[in-house]
């Protein structure tokens, strides 16, 4: 008998108390918790996102489409970044005139090559206001998981309010489980030494978020 059969057999014998008629969807789960906590307008969700991101030591900026390239140029210059990793589907206009060397992520790039890059610039899939979370799903403007992990500085552009949801329950239906997801809430951090919080252990030490207002909202 295979170990699979042994384990499943043990499970079935262990559950002899479960009535025969009971199906896998029983007993029902009461979901009377909130879909979202409190009631906020879309603009208030964006404010809360900004607040919670900042609370976890991300640096938050706001921008319109017109201002975006100059903001990106300034933020990269302030960091002294000379090389910037970009996913294949990133809007080329964002980095126009940034005065940096763009490094395209290729399947063949090794972790060591990524380690030599100063910054990474991406979009995101969904951002969650209540928890201050960015979710990346590997879309064309976000790229492979490793590019937002190895460089020390991550600059992430969130389209507001379109990409912002209020809560975790509102985020999950907008995400595809078959894609690898990375949920990011502030920069890498540890509290393992006497519970003193230290930012930046293995992931990026600096997370900067640009809340990009849609042209509609900016008008």
């Amino acid at each position, binding site marked *: 008998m*295979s*170990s699979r059969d*042994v*384990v*499943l*057999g*043990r*499970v079935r*014998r*262990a*559950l002899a*108390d*479960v009535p025969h008629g009971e199906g*896998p969807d*029983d*007993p029902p*789960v*009461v979901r*009377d*918790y*909130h879909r979202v*906590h409190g009631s906020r307008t879309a603009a208030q969700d964006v404010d809360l996102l900004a607040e*919670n991101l900042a609370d*976890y030591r991300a640096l938050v900026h706001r921008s319109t489409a017109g201002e975006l390239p100059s903001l990106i140029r300034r933020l990269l210059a302030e960091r002294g970044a000379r090389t910037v990793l970009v996913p294949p589907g990133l809007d080329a206009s964002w980095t126009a005139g940034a005065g940096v060397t763009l490094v395209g992520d290729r*399947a063949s790039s*090794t*972790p*060591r090559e990524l*380690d030599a890059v100063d910054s990474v610039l991406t979009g995101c899939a969904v951002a969650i206001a209540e*928890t201050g979370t960015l979710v990346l799903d*590997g879309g064309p403007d976000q790229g*492979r*998981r*490793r590019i937002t992990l190895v460089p020390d500085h991550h600059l992430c552009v969130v389209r507001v309010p379109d990409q912002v949801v209020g809560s*975790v*329950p509102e985020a*999950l*239906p907008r995400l595809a*489980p*078959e*894609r*690898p*997801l*990375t*949920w*990011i*809430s502030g920069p*890498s*951090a*540890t*509290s*393992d*030494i*006497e*519970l003193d919080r*230290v930012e*930046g*252990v*293995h*992931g990026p030490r600096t997370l900067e978020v640009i809340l990009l207002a849609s042209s509609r909202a900016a008008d």
Partner: protein
Amino acid sequence: MSGTYLGMPDFPRAAAAATRDTRLRANLTHATHTIRDKRAKAVAELDDWAQLRAAGAAVKDRTLRHLDHYLEQLEAAVVAAGGQVHWAVDADEANRIVTRLVRETGEREVVKVKSMATQEIGLNEALAEAGIRAYETDLAELIVQLGDDLPSHLLVPAIHRNRSEIRDIFRREMGSWGRPAPEGLSDSPAELAEAARLHLREKFLSAKVGISGANFMVAETGTLVVVESEGNGRMCLTLPETLISVVGIEKVVPRWQDLEVFLQLLPRSSTAERMNPYTSTWTGTTDGDGPRTFHLVLLDNGRTDTLADTVGRQALRCIRCSACLNVCPVYERAGGHAYGSPYPGPIGAILTPQLRGIEGALEASLPYASSLCGACYEVCPVAIDIPEVLLHLRERVVEGGPVTRRGARTVLQPAKGHAAERAAMRAAAWAFDHPGVLRAGARLAARTRRLHPRRLPGPGRAWSATRELPAVPAESFRDWWQRTRGTSSERQGGAK
């Protein structure tokens, strides 16, 4: 210590030693109180915590009641997404599977994400025997590994170490594992974290095999979820070519939507954050992104025996948040090592005896490693009634009864005159020699009234078999003990 819990003394002896270690106690008290207060604030932010908690418990219970169905569904979904699924009946089999999988890659080194399941099975030691070196990459696990030590807390495994001890360990040991500690390393947490970053980055960038556990597995989609803070998890999950995840069969949840409950309950209960810095989810393999080969090893190792106990089954709901450790007066004084397993504190006191059986002296003493104050139940995000299970297990220790061992039903003999009862006796005596532990328990006694047994199982059985336990709080448990145990002639060695 040599990286294994086997041969650990039973709880009272280990706890007695720990309580004499004033530095350990000071570290622990500071840490548990800090996390406890932060957690209360994080939980208070959500006015539907009670509903989330009930839903979390209900989802887990439903899954456990149909675990065979959900495991088969999970397996099919993982395979459809390009993963390979292996089943391990016990620790030895899981270790053999993982060792074989690593060997097949031709590699001699692996990087590891912190994982309770791999600690439970002693994977690092098994790999070492096969000539494969496993590098722990969580900062606290690195401290533990370099210090040739054992974890003492679910969430902060090196909670028993302070900064100067950590600096000394890094200076002394890093060189023999890879990149040495920087010259003149101080004991500031920022410098220590930086030293770990530099030390481990070499490993991450060259690793070909990663080993992880998982916090959740979604049956309908085949998705695995790892919740972490440092990014070492992301490194291990995405940079290597081969990923092997060893996960207990109880970690499955039915649907994608269920994550909305647990991703709210877990971070706030464990690190007291609205959300932990990083959460990774993956489903099988993805072309061009992450490992090309993914193996899932589903681990039983006593879980089906636990499942067979209709009272004790609820321990399998545990999401390893560690909230119960931080409120436990016994854990605070005894320290994590006294529990003799990777699962310390209140959850360890009910999980370890069920996973391993209660026949051993350590396992028999664990259900007594509690003041029954009920604080663990109050904070548990999946509402595990730990005091209820403790009482149930105490009864099993002294009265025997039906149990399942390795899948076979058997009847446990009462432990009368058996080593188990002596161990239990010593555990109780230990607790009563530490009045602070008992006061913390007695304070809440009235609220946990329904949890008090009519007849006292365990060490009290000899005294209580012929009398009803007095009602709480007409006479406190402590007073009752003082009155009924008479002089200290019953107490045995090791409890001082």
